[in-house]
């Protein structure tokens, strides 16, 4: 509540443009007019606050949180990292939501008709909150790649979708991260909506052998950066 500075402008060159014909669905869903650039008002510099009490104990354990009592099938992994803003400050107590396909590449969603079977013990939905240093972690199984209708049967690399709120509505971000070494990353039309190779690299989780759970789960590290807040050098001017 004490912070009042504006957020640093979004570097749109780091994000995919709206119109990316290699990803066909974007063609009819991309605005043609330029975005209207505006400073942020008090409403945009605020955002929803979620209480830690909303989390259930297994919300960050996708291996067990479907609630059947059984465990999901697949390569067991822990995903962890930090959420910082562009100024390097930890983003504290912010909600992270994740969703993903099962080990066979199938989503538990009404509209997913992929022939791979559902895993009776896997829902694919999780959430957690960052701590005071901006750290987060969750446990899951590595999702499988899956085919989709784009350029014939294109294949998505293994990926986990994630959603963050930050402290302000203008920090809102939904994206996807990938796994180091996956040969499908370079061929993915959705990854390649991002023009800058360095920005694409920023979506790849790194194998983190040191943080493995021995004889249990591999670990991947994935750090997330949200927009930074400018300092207010001259207030009330």
């Amino acid at each position, binding site marked *: 509540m004490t912070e009042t500075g504006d957020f640093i402008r979004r570097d749109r060159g780091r994000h995919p443009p709206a119109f990316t014909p290699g990803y066909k669905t*974007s063609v009819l869903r991309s605005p043609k007019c330029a975005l209207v650039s505006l400073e942020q008002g*008090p*409403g945009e510099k605020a955002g929803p606050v979620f209480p830690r009490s909303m989390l259930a104990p297994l919300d960050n354990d996708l291996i067990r949180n479907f609630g059947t009592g059984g465990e999901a099938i697949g390569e067991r992994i822990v995903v962890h990292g930090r959420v910082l803003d562009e100024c390097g400050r930890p983003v504290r107590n912010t909600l992270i939501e994740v969703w993903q396909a099962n080990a066979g590449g199938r989503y538990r969603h009404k509209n997913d008709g992929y022939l791979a079977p559902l895993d009776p013990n896997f829902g694919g939905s999780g959430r957690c909150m960052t701590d005071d240093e901006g750290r987060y972690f969750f446990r899951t199984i590595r999702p499988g790649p899956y085919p989709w209708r784009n350029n014939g049967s294109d294949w998505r690399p293994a990926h986990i979708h994630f959603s963050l709120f930050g402290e302000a509505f203008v920090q809102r971000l939904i994206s996807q991260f990938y796994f180091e070494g996956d040969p499908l990353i370079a061929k993915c039309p959705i990854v390649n909506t991002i023009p800058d190779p360095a920005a694409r690299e920023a979506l790849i989780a790194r194998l983190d052998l040191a943080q493995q759970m021995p004889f249990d789960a591999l670990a991947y590290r994935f750090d997330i950066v949200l927009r930074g807040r400018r300092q207010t050098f001259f207030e009330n001017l």
Partner: protein
Amino acid sequence: MPVEYLKETPSQTGGPYVHIGTMPAVAGLPVRSQETLSVLAGATTPGERIRIEGVVWDGSGHPVKDALVELWQADSTGSHHAEGFSGFGRAAADFATGEWSFETVKPGSLPWRDGRPQAPHVSILIFARGINIHLHTRMYFADESAANAEDPVLRSIEQVGRRATLVAERTRKNGVPTYRFDIRLQGDAETVFFDM
């Protein structure tokens, strides 16, 4: 060398299965505790109870049936983070029709950065398959025409004719004041989207 900052993580589309992580019950998963839903206001929430409804339309005039719409607003006195009213809601487009709706209260006016009043409005984000980075817009209320005419954000839209794309008409549906907000991603009446 200029000072180095970290760089924002790039956006990717929410995809067609965005509901699994954000509104699991819509995807067909069990309801979890304290789900964020499209009903923001309870019977005791101060302010005028209203409904906001609409469809996100693609460039061929077809509804975007996998859209996730997020709403962020002030309470009826124009304040954020009021006790008992989070001001945040989520709605999923209907998979058959693309219709989405919120039940909330009409927000009050809150000041712009220079102290001028803003007309009552709600902020809206749109996520969907094929939308690479979410779209940010605002909905204003047609029955606030005097305030709308002075609103600093509406007035900053250079193409005067486009301002109307952000103003929702007031009707009544089942006795509830209802604002219809159709969002057009392309075409002659393309909705104004912001970079803020």
